[in-house]
């Protein structure tokens, strides 16, 4: 890609030249989002990066406005949310956009992550890009969790109790850390106040890491469904209009679904118990986190037995956090030289089983922890770990990949049936775009 990195920006006006010599910001924007070359075979799975940026902006905008009407005090918080819903002009809309926006943010990030796993987007030279993405995902989870506490309903309170309880599993210093997090012996007013402060801060940290993520992306360039590197200029198209329009179309479709949920089923993804004000003396009959945490929650609950010196509580917490740590290690766990699952028949099979496994864990996380469910969750957790720690490293060594195309252009033309008579060389001719 580096061959195409030279700037092609030429300011057209006198003011443009004057500005460019003093601070080349328009040049940066032009080179990053107009002339920037993207592989010509990107499919709609690649549009979720843009959708995620849009969701971050939506969440920050609605969040800033909601904070103007919200009171971060355990005596007032629940009522202030109802005040937003009933009294504030369009408060109901802003709040539903914000609360469902979190869910849609996670829908998009899961598509984005699974797309990366399918097309091997984490492989050299994109390891840092992948790790930055994992950091964004962690920040998103922290932000979402703290945001869910703010309405001060029953699920807010007990979710906060359970999740801060994870830290009390750490030997020796666990209780101290938990008290440091919640500022007391139980979740209360100090907890709500600091969560509000951090919930306001973290999205801006996410925005910062997103800048790094996009920077790293623009150094290495996008992957593409074939996993073959860009070799000639003919393998790419300029970001504008091709990617801008494709991303824009995907955003519109995504927003249509988002709007349907906001206007017709705004509480579908939430939990009814969160419309009951927090009560420290009564736990709801079942505590479930928001849907996007359910697979991890299932793994936490799957460990009901002690393993040597590790008790069941610490074991569950380790298995849960470990499942996310594994994501950071993926670039080195996958030993295959072939990026894309399209050319890896066995990896493709296990990828889909893995996807089903995660969905199954999510379903189990929503079920009560009795009967057959913990056992199934344990099986699911074992497969989750085996996928990363056994299948990924071994498959790369023993699997025979299918034949890769020589170039992106060749694979595109093959798909079109015989190529239409344009040899790769011709497509690689110098661009004559004005």
């Amino acid at each position: 890609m580096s061959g195409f990195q030279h700037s092609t920006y030429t300011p057209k006006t006198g003011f443009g030249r004057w500005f460019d010599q003093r601070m080349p910001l328009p040049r940066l924007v032009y080179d990053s989002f107009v002339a920037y070359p993207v592989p010509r075979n990107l499919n709609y799975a690649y549009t979720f990066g843009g959708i995620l940026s849009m969701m971050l902006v939506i969440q920050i905008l609605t969040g800033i406005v909601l904070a103007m009407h919200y009171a971060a005090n355990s005596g007032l918080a629940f009522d202030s949310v109802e005040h937003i819903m009933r009294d504030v002009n369009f408060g109901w809309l802003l709040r539903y956009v914000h609360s469902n926006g979190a869910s849609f943010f996670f829908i998009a990030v899961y598509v984005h992550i699974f797309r990366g796993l399918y097309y091997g987007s984490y492989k050299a030279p994109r390891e840092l890009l992948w790790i930055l993405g994992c950091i964004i995902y962690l920040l998103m989870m922290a932000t979402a969790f703290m945001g869910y506490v703010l309405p001060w309903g029953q699920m807010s309170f007990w979710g906060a109790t359970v999740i801060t309880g994870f830290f009390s599993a750490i030997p020796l210093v666990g209780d101290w850390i938990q008290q440091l997090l919640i500022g007391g012996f139980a979740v209360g007013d100090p907890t709500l106040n600091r969560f509000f402060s951090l919930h306001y801060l973290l999205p801006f940290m996410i925005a910062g890491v997103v800048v790094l993520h996009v920077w790293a992306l623009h150094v290495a360039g996008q992957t593409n469904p074939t996993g073959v590197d860009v070799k000639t200029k003919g393998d790419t198209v300029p970001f504008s209009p091709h990617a801008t329009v494709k991303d824009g179309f995907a955003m519109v479709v995504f927003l249509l679904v988002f709007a349907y949920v906001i206007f017709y089923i705004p509480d579908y993804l939430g939990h009814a118990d969160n419309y009951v004000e927090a009560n420290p003396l009564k736990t709801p009959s079942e505590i479930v986190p928001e849907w996007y945490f359910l697979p991890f929650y299932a793994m936490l609950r799957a460990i009901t037995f002690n393993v040597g010196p590790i008790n069941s509580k610490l074991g569950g917490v380790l298995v849960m956090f470990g499942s996310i740590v594994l994501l950071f290690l993926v670039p080195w766990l996958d030993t295959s030289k072939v990026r894309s699952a399209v050319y890896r028949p066995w990896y493709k099979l296990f990828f889909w089983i893995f996807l089903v496994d995660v969905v199954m864990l999510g379903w189990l996380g929503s079920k009560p922890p009795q009967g057959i469910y913990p056992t199934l969750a344990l099986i699911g957790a074992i497969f989750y770990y085996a996928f990363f720690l056994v299948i990924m490293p071994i498959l790369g060594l023993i699997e025979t990949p299918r034949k890769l195309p020589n170039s992106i252009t060749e694979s595109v033309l093959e798909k079109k049936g015989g190529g239409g008579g344009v040899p790769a060389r011709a497509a690689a001719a110098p661009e004559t775009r004005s």
Partner: protein
Amino acid sequence: MSAEAIEPNRRDFLYIATGMAGVVGAASVAWPFIDQMQPDASTLALASVEVDVSSVTPGMSLIVKWRGKPVVVRNRTPKEMKEAEEVKLSELKDPIARNDNLPSDAPATDANRTVKGQEAWLVMVQVCTHLGCIPLGQEGEFGGWFCPCHGSQYDTAGRIRKGPAPENMAIPKYKFTSKTSVTIG
């Protein structure tokens, strides 16, 4: 030339002195930022709670709030006590009494889960030792407590028997000041 470079000069001294002052300064400024997160004076100023239990007949319980947490005061029935007494220590997941009124290594016999002379009364922080939910009383396979969050089951002495919780529920410091009055904390 090289000997000259090794010889420390004024600039080296300033380098190190500035660096050290920076490290010490950063650390001393960091501590207030961390320490402010800890439970504050108003949270720590926990008065002990006095509870009137004259109305609690066998088979009844009372829940009071202490340190922001529910404490159950249960007058156990003879059947419940008998069930708890018959459990062998080897069957327990956590063989330690977790009773603040006793040494920290006391075994988790039924008597050790109470105070001497008031064995029928179980006074216990009703918070699951797994992740802090409030278990439901007189539920579950052992007739004690059942935690709806992650399925931990406790017996009639509040000892963990099954599920992910690692420890028996905690017994706070408490004292019967009279036949009908308990002071917790």
